[in-house]
């Protein structure tokens, strides 16, 4: 890559680093892992910058983040999942403290999901993507997206049985 392309790549990353890092953090739930994931993907982006710069580089990098994260799962899936530790008791009143507790408990529960399940939830609820786009990004069918989302929510219920709002079983599709 010549100096001009390097400058262009650096300017692009500087402008989009925050958004990309948020996605990496949503996918991993852990700052250090998010940094590593993003760095891995950006390194690939730097290698291919000459090719991807004329298209939609952000879409390329986002897709790479999701695929990189979920592909790790394939190599990890023989390892046992570890449930999260005890979660805080939920207050029934809907006050501000209860909301904070709910979000914290949800975040901890999300950390117990398999990366592919988590990725589906991130794409649906963090990025508000339609199932068709989620399917394209994760390289699967729309019906797989719906079943993965349903399983993810079911798994959340298992991990965090005390979270009242998860008690109602969700339909597989939206």
């Amino acid at each position: 890559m010549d100096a001009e392309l390097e400058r262009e790549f650096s300017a692009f990353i500087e402008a989009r680093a925050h958004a990309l890092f948020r996605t990496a953090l949503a996918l991993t739930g852990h700052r250090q892992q998010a940094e590593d994931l993003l760095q891995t993907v950006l390194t690939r982006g730097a290698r291919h910058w000459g090719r991807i710069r004329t298209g939609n580089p952000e879409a390329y990098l986002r897709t790479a983040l999701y695929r990189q994260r979920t592909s790790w799962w394939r190599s990890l899936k023989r390892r046992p999942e570890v449930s999260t530790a005890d979660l805080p008791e939920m207050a029934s009143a809907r006050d501000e403290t209860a909301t904070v507790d709910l979000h914290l408990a949800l975040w901890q529960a999300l950390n117990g999901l398999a990366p592919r399940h988590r990725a589906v939830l991130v794409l649906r609820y963090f990025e508000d993507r339609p199932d068709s786009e989620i399917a394209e990004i994760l390289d699967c069918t729309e019906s797989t997206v719906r079943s993965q989302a349903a399983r993810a929510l079911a798994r959340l219920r298992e991990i965090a049985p005390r979270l009242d709002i998860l008690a109602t079983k969700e339909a597989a599709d939206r």
Partner: protein
Amino acid sequence: MNPQVTEALRDTFQEFTDATPPAGLARAALRRARRQRLARLTTGAVAACAALAAVVGTVAVGLPGDGGTAGRTAAGGPGPSVVTAYSGVRDPKIADPSPAYNYSLLLNYRTGRYDRVPYRFAMPSPDGRRVLVGIGDNSTAHPSRAGIMDRASGQVRWIEAPPGITGFPGYSQDGHWSPDGRRILFTHRPRPGQGTGGFVLVDPDTLRTSFVALPDLETHNAQGHGLTWTPTSDGVALTLSVLNQQENAYITTGIRFYDLSGKEQATVPVQTPLARSGAFSPDGGRMALVDEESPGPETVINVADPATGALDRPVRLDRPARLVGWADDRHLLVHVFGDSAPPGAARHDQFLVVDLDARVTRTLRPVDAGPQEIFLGPAAGLPADAAAKLTF
């Protein structure tokens, strides 16, 4: 879809991902991309070396000065110091880049080679008898633990969290031995709402831990620096920084020194952060200041007086470099990368011993491992042939 679940998930993701990205992402990505390109060009030699390392569990080092350094290198013989550990090496055979899968290389003084150990962090004690080790990545699947490994037996005693402290060592930086080897220091920065920041001291003999609150870690540390031992082992130092909102840039304002009870001892004004490695010369008479977050085409290591912050001199290198530590009170060891070598210079990584006038007095070739951290120690006890290759 239950709208409550949708709302809660949206809010949770929004809330917990509102974090500042690390600095220097593009530069680091470009640097890694260059290295990967270089690695592909030299696949044959590197693959053979990696395969051998994987089989025998040790890594050989090259001869010093391989490839030359464009005639800038003075002659040098065996010296009193050596790299004792390459800590946090990524295994290319594992796709998951989590540091939980990293390993480390420890110098075997009997053979003069580096032995692989299954810890993502490994720092030998100053006397070499013990090694502070770390595992995990603070995730649910791989919780972090820190322990002390006996070098002779390989057995590890794991360190427990101090009473009342949650998230240790999960939200702590990897520990560091004090220069006298009598304590270990962990900078502890818990998540918001999980307690106060400070530091944890560990007695390596008894594993007794104590926590010392240090509010400055949160209030005067916008850049998130960790604590560093003072050379006398009786205090710690912190680089103070603030965020300039208008320019969205961090500004270093000084170095603050504390005793081991957390009481402030002195603050000296400086404009560059204390180096992460090799902050103080062995005699404590100098400190090294480096802006590692904003590296440029050249490297400037500001050598200053710890008592006043006054700049002694800048040590300028004409290429990107990482300060590894002090070879002695008047020489620095820096790591330069092959992919940033100027025309005519060696195209592989090198360690350069430079004096305070930036003259290179010795060149060595590091293990081709890309470690997170490199630790130095005394060279006494190495076989003569290994000492000739490894010491400075």
